[in-house]
C-alpha cells in the first residue's frame, strides 16, 4: 500500500497530482498529512492557500484538530458563564435591598430590579426611595393571592379552557429550517402526559466560537451531529453470484461530510453482523458473506444499508440556520441531548431539546421543570393564547415535585393521590376500591373529590375556614 495508495487517496479527494507528489515527498499517510496541519504543509513549500485546501480535503481529521483548538477556547467561556450564574446586583439594587431590609418588607426581587433600573441615572432622594418601596409593598400586598385560594383548579382551568380553542393537527416549521414540530393541542397533551419521546423530537443547538461565525465550521459540526448512514455517502450493490456486497463510496459526498474510507471500514467492522467480513481496496469496500446462504446475505445487506457511519444516534437530520443575532445554529430532527452536549463547537448552555424527559435525565429535575414551563408556554403562545405563566409553573412544579417527571393522569399524579375515593372517582374505579380494602387504607377526606362524594363542603376557599361564631347568650 503505502505511498501509492496515499497518492490515489489524495487524488480521489481532489488534490491535484502535482501537489500530491510534493506531499508524498515528506508524508506517507493521509493521517500524517492532516496531523501536520497547515503550518506543516507550508514548511514543505506549499502556499497557504493550497495547504488549507489540502487539509480540508483530507477531511475529518483536520476538522478534529481545529475542533480541539475550539474546545480549549470553549472551556474558558464555559467557566466564565458558570461563575457568572448569580445575578450581579447593581448599586441601585444594593441600595434598595438594604432599604428593604431596614423597612422590614420583602418584595419580589423582580420588583426591586425593575425599580432600580428606572432609578438608574435619575436623581431621587433616599427618602423618596424608601417611600417607593413602601408604596410598592402596599401594592404588592394588595396584588397577592388570598390564602385558601384554589390555585390548582384555577391553573387547571386556565390551561384546559384554551385547549378547546386550540387547533388539532397543527404542525409548525421551526424557523426557516423546515423541521416540523408538533404544535397546538396535541403538543400540549404530550407535555402534560410526560411522554418519554415526543412525537416530533427536535433540538435547537446554538453554536459558539468559530462555529457560530463560519458556515464551513458550522457545517462540520452539523455533520458531527447528523447521522450519516452508508447510503448517504456511498452506493451499494449486491453481488449475488459471489455472495457479497460491494460499496462504492462517493468521494464528493464523503468530503462533504468529512468521512474517510478508514472511517467507513472501521464503522462497518463495528456492526455485529458484519464483523470480520469487511475487506477493501482503494476505491471500494467489499463485504463478503461467510455462509453461502441468501438469508445471511439479506441480513448483511440490511446491516450495510443501515450502517451508521457518523453522527449521533437518534438525530436523523440537522439543518443549519442563522439565529436572530446572525450566528449559526443547528436545528435537528430527533433528539439526543446527552451526546450533542459532548460535541465541540456546540453552545452547551443554550442547547435545548423539546424532549422533557431527556432534559430530566441529562440535566436534572429543575431543568425539566423549566423545560415544561418553556414548552407549554411556547405552545400556548404559538397558538396565540395568553395564559399567565404562574399557572404553567404550578403544573410544572406539581409534575416534578418528587424528583421525577410525573404525568398528569392515572399513571402519574391522579393515580397516586392519597384518597381512595378521589382515585376511584377518576379512573379505574373497581381495582382502586378493592386494593384499598385489602391494604386497609384510610381516607381522611381532605381533598376535593372525596368531600364532594360524601356530601361535605370542600376544604378550599370558604370551606377551608373552620370558624364558627357562637353569639353570647343574653346579648339580645
Amino acid at each position, binding site marked *: 500500500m503505502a505511498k501509492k495508495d496515499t497518492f490515489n487517496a489524495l487524488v480521489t479527494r481532489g488534490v491535484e497530482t502535482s501537489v500530491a507528489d510534493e506531499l508524498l515527498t515528506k508524508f506517507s499517510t493521509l493521517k500524517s498529512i492532516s496531523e501536520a496541519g497547515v503550518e506543516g504543509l507550508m514548511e514543505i513549500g506549499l502556499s497557504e492557500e493550497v495547504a488549507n485546501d489540502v487539509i480540508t480535503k483530507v477531511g475529518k481529521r483536520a476538522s478534529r484538530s481545529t475542533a480541539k483548538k475550539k474546545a480549549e477556547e470553549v472551556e474558558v467561556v464555559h467557566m466564565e458563564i458558570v461563575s457568572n450564574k448569580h445575578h450581579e446586583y447593581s448599586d441601585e439594587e444594593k441600595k434598595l435591598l438594604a432599604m428593604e431590609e431596614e423597612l422590614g418588607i420583602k418584595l419580589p426581587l423582580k420588583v426591586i430590579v425593575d425599580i432600580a433600573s428606572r432609578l438608574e441615572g435619575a436623581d431621587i432622594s433616599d427618602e423618596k426611595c424608601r417611600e417607593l418601596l413602601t408604596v410598592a409593598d402596599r401594592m404588592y400586598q394588595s396584588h397577592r393571592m388570598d390564602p385558601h385560594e384554589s390555585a390548582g383548579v384555577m391553573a387547571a382551568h386556565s390551561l384546559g*379552557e384554551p385547549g378547546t380553542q386550540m387547533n388539532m393537527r397543527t404542525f409548525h416549521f421551526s424557523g426557516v429550517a423546515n423541521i416540523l414540530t408538533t404544535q397546538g393541542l396535541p403538543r400540549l397533551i404530550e407535555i402534560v402526559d410526560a411522554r418519554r419521546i415526543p412525537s416530533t423530537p427536535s433540538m435547537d443547538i446554538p453554536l459558539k466560537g468559530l462555529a457560530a461565525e463560519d458556515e464551513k465550521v458550522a457545517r462540520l459540526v452539523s455533520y458531527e451531529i447528523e447521522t450519516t448512514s452508508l447510503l448517504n455517502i456511498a452506493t451499494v450493490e449486491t453481488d449475488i453470484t459471489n455472495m457479497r456486497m460491494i460499496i462504492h463510496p462517493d468521494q464528493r459526498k464523503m468530503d462533504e461530510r468529512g468521512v474517510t474510507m478508514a472511517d467507513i471500514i472501521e464503522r462497518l467492522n463495528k456492526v455485529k453482523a458484519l464483523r470480520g467480513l469487511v475487506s477493501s481496496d482503494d476505491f471500494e469496500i467489499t463485504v463478503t458473506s461467510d455462509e453461502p446462504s441468501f438469508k445471511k446475505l439479506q441480513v448483511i445487506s440490511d446491516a450495510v444499508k443501515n450502517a451508521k457511519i457518523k453522527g449521533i444516534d437518534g438525530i436523523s437530520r440537522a439543518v443549519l440556520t442563522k439565529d436572530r443575532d446572525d450566528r449559526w445554529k443547528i436545528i435537528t430532527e430527533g433528539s439526543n441531548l446527552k451526546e450533542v452536549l459532548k460535541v465541540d463547537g456546540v453552545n452547551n448552555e443554550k442547547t435545548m431539546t423539546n424532549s422533557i424527559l431527556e432534559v430530566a435525565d441529562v440535566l436534572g429535575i429543575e431543568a425539566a421543570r423549566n423545560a415544561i414551563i418553556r414548552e407549554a408556554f411556547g405552545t400556548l403562545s404559538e397558538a396565540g393564547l395568553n395564559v399567565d*405563566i404562574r399557572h404553567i409553573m404550578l403544573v410544572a412544579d406539581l409534575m416534578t415535585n418528587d424528583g421525577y417527571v410525573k404525568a398528569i*393522569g392515572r399513571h402519574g399524579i391522579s393515580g397516586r393521590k392519597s384518597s381512595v375515593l378521589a382515585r376511584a372517582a377518576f379512573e379505574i374505579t373497581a381495582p382502586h376500591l378493592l386494593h384499598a380494602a385489602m391494604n386497609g387504607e384510610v381516607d381522611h377526606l381532605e381533598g376535593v373529590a372525596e368531600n364532594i362524594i*360524601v356530601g361535605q363542603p370542600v376544604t378550599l376557599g370558604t370551606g377551608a375556614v373552620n370558624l364558627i361564631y357562637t353569639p353570647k347568650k343574653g346579648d339580645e
Partner: protein
Amino acid sequence: MKGIIKKIDRINFGLMSPEQIREMSVVKIERPDTYDEDGYPIESGLMDSRLGVIDPSLKCRTCGEKGGECQGHFGMIELARPVIHVGFGDDIHKILRSTCTECGRVLLDDDEIEEFTEKMEELQEAGESVEDLVKDVYKICKDKKTKEVCPHCGAEQEDIKIVKPIDIIEVRKQYDENGELMTEEDGTPLTEDYDLTASEVREKLQRIPDEDAYVLGVNPEVARPEWMVLTVLPVPPVTVRPSITLDTGERSEDDLTHKLVDILRINQRLIENMDAGAPQLIVEDLWKLLQYHVTTYFDNEASGVPPARHRSGRPLKTLAQRLKGKEGRFRSNLSGKRVNFSARTVISPDPNISINEVGVPEMIAKEVTVPTYVNEWNIEELKEAILNGPNVHPGANYVKKTINGKEMKVRVLDDNRELVVENLEYGDVVMRHLKDGDIVLFNRQPSLHRMSMMAHEVRVLPYKTFRLNLCVCPPYNADFDGDEMNMHVFQTDESRAEAKSLMRVQEHILSPRFGGPIIGAIHDHISGAYLLTRDGFTVREDDAFQMIRKSHLLNNEYVDKKHLKRKNRDWTGKELFSLLLPDDLNMNYKAEICRKCETCLKEDCQYDAFVVIKDGQLTHGAIDEAAYGSFSGKILDTIVKEYGPSRAKEFLDRSTDLAICGIMKTGITTGTNDEEIPEEAIEVIDAHLDKAEQEVDKLIATYEEGLLQPLPGRSAEETLEMRIVQVLGEARDTAGEIAEGYLTMGKQSQDDSYDYVMAVENHSVVMARTGARASMLNLTQITACVGQQAVRGGRIERGYINRTLPHFKKGELGAKAKGFVHSSYKSGLDPIEFFFHAMGGREGLVDTAVRTSRSGYMQRRLVSALEDLKLTADGSIRNTADTIIQFRYGEDGTDPTRSVGGKVIDMDDLFTEVLGDDADALLRLDSRDVGEDYGSREKDEMEYFEEENSDYESETEYESE
C-alpha cells in the same frame, strides 16, 4: 345554619370476614325465586321482605319501616363451595407466589420481614401508600420462589401461575418412582400444571400468618388473605336492586337480581349433587359454573370471562359496571348530583338588562322557589305572596312550619290560603316565588372555567327564554342559535352570601387566565362606540341629552352633574363617551384601528387611533375593541383594577347602552356593496394571481426538467410543494393587500382623497377594523381571492389516482389542480373550486369534533391532578398530604387576576404615586405593556383558522378511558 357541618372524619376500608357477613345478614337466602303468584315476596327468596321493601304499602320485617323509609338490610347466601373473588385473582396469585408451598410463610427471612414491616408501618403512619414496597416484596419473593427453598421450613417450592382472571395453577415438579427430580433433556425440571381449586387456594391463604400477610399488602387489622376467597356471599337489600313494574303489569327484575338467581340455582344444584354423592366430575363442573356466576356477579367485563347476558342478549350490568366509568356511581351520582330548584331553557339576548342580571321567564319564577324565614319585616309581603298562591307571580308554593319539633310542609292551595296566612308566624319558612333582585346561579355547559358559572340577579320577564346581557356571552361562550342554559336557586343564606361576594358577574370581569377582562363589549357595541366617538361625529344638543337619558347617565351616581350642563352647541361623540369615564382617569394607548405606522404620530394620528384620556376626558382617539372589548379592553381593564368591579359593571352597562344609542343615531348597515372594488383593481388582482399561477407553472417546469434545487434535507418533490404553497400564499396576500387599499372605513380626514363611490362609508370595513366582527382577511377573501384550500396541512392531494378530480391530467401539479381558489367569494367559485373549498370546510368540522373530546379529557385530567392544591396561609402551595408544591405561589405570590399584565405591580403607577409630576421622566408609557394584546391575537387567529381551516398533519392515537 344548623351547627357544625363537617361530620365524616374518615373512611376506613377493609374486607369483610365470612363471620361479619353472616352477622350483618338478616336472612339466609336459599330459594332462587322472587315473588309468588300473588306478587308477594317469597320467604327466604331474593325479595324476602326482611331485606327491606320498595313498595310503600308493605312493611319491612326487620325494622318495621314502610317502603321508602327502610333503607334495606343485607342477606346472605352460604356458598356450597368456596369461590374466588374476581377482583382479587391477581393479588391471590401474587401472594401465593410469594409464600411457601408447604408452610405458607412469606419467602423472606426474618430480618427482611422485620425490615419491610418497619418501613411499611412508617409509611402507613404517614398516610402514604405502601404499594411500592409491597411490589418490592413480590419481586424478591418471585425470584426466590423458583430458585430457592423456603427460609422458614426449607421446603422445595412449586411455582404458581395464573390464567386471568381467576384460575390459579400450581406448576408441580415431576418426580419419578425413586423420588428423583425428572428433567428435560436440557436439565430443566419436568413439570406438570395442576389447577388449584378455590378450596385449596383458600387453605393455602389460611396458612399465612398475620405478620407475613402484612408485608404482602394484606393488612391483618382489616383483612385476612383467605377472605379473598368467598364462602358466603352477601346479598344486597332489594332497595339496591329494585324491580320495576312495567305498564303491562309485568315485573322486570334488576340485573343484580337475575345474577343472584343464577348463583342460587347453581348453588342449590351443587348442594343437591354433593348430598347425593354425585361423581367428582359433575360436582367440579357445577363448582366451575358457580365460580362463573359469582365472577360475573361482581364484574361482567372481566377479561377472559364471557359476559353474562340478559335474555335479550344485552350484557348484564353487575356490581363493577355500576361503579365504573362516566355513567357509573362514582362519576355520575357521587361526584355530580341531580338537584332541585334548577331550570333550563333557551337563551336570548337583552341589551337592556345589566350584565349581572338574568331575565327569568315568569313560568320558571313560579316553579323554583326561595325559602324565606318569616320575620317582622317581611311577614306582610310573604302573607301577600301566600294569598297570591302558586299560580300568580309573586306568590308562594309551600310553607314549612315546625310544630312540636316536627317539621311540616304545607302546600299552598286555593282553599287553604287564608288558613295558612292566619297561622303564619315568625320562624316559619315560606317557599316564595323567585322575584326581582334574588340571586341565582347561571351556567352554560361545557363549564370549562369558573366564569362558566356566575351569580346573577333575577329579573322576572315575560315569555319563555332566559335573557342575558350580551357582554356576558364571551365568558359563557354563548350565542343565541338555540343555546340553552341552566339556572340554580340558592337555598341557604350562606350560599347566597358566598355567591354574592364571590360569584357575581362583576367579580369575574377579569379572567384569572391572563389577568385581563373577559367580559366586555362585543359586536355592535364596538362598531357603535367607534361610529360615535370617531373624529367629526357630532349631535345636536337635544339629541345628546336624549342619548344621555336613554343610556341612563342622568342621575347616575358615577356621573358628575357638572358634565351634564348645557353647552349651547353640538356635542361631539367623544364628549358623550367621556361622561362614562371616572374624572381622574388618565391613560393613553393605541386603538385597535391603529395601522402600526412606522413612526407613530401619537395625538396627531390621521386615523384617530391614538387614544388620550386626560382627567376623564377623551381628547383624542376613537373607542373600539381595544378600549372595552372582551379579551382586550384597556379602559375596562384599568377601571376594574383601579375603581373596583362595581364601577366597572356600571361602566360596561352604560357604555354599551351609549354605544347602542350611537349606532342607532348613525345607523349601520352592511352588504356586498361594501366589498365592491373598482374594475381596475380587480384587473390588477387578476393579473397578479395569473402571474403567480404562471410562476407556479414555471416552478413545475423546472422541477420536471430536474433542475429544481432541493432545499437542504428535502427531496425535490417536497421542495417544489413548499415553494408552490409559498408562492400562492404570497399571491393571495398581495391580492388581499391590493383589495385592502380600496377598502377604507370612509373619509378619514378632510384632505383624504377618495373617489370610489362605495368608500364613503364602508361599515364592513368599520366592523373589521374596529374589531367588532370579521377581519380584513375575511373581507379580502370576499373581494379579492379566497386562496389555497388545505387538507391535512398541505395542498389537496386526495381524490382519484394521481389527481384530485377527473378534470385534470394525471400527475398535474398546477395551482388550480390542487385546490387553489382563484375566485373571490363575491365573484363566485367555479364548481371545482367549490368542491375543494368544501373539502377544506369538512376537515375543519371533523377537526372541531375531535378537538372537543381530546381537550375535554385533558382538562379532566388536569383538574383531577390539581384540584387539591391550595394556597396556604404561609404563601406556599400544598396538596392534601401537606406536601409543598411551591414555596411561594408563582414565585412571587401574585394573583394572576390582580397582576398587571402578568407583572407584580405597575411601575408607572408606583412612580406617579410617589413622585407625582417629577415621575414623568421615569415613566415608560410607550413601552407600557399593560394588557399588551391580551387576547387580541387569539381572536384574530381563531377567526383565521375558522375561515381558513388550515389544518395540518393528523395524529391518530387517542387516549380515553
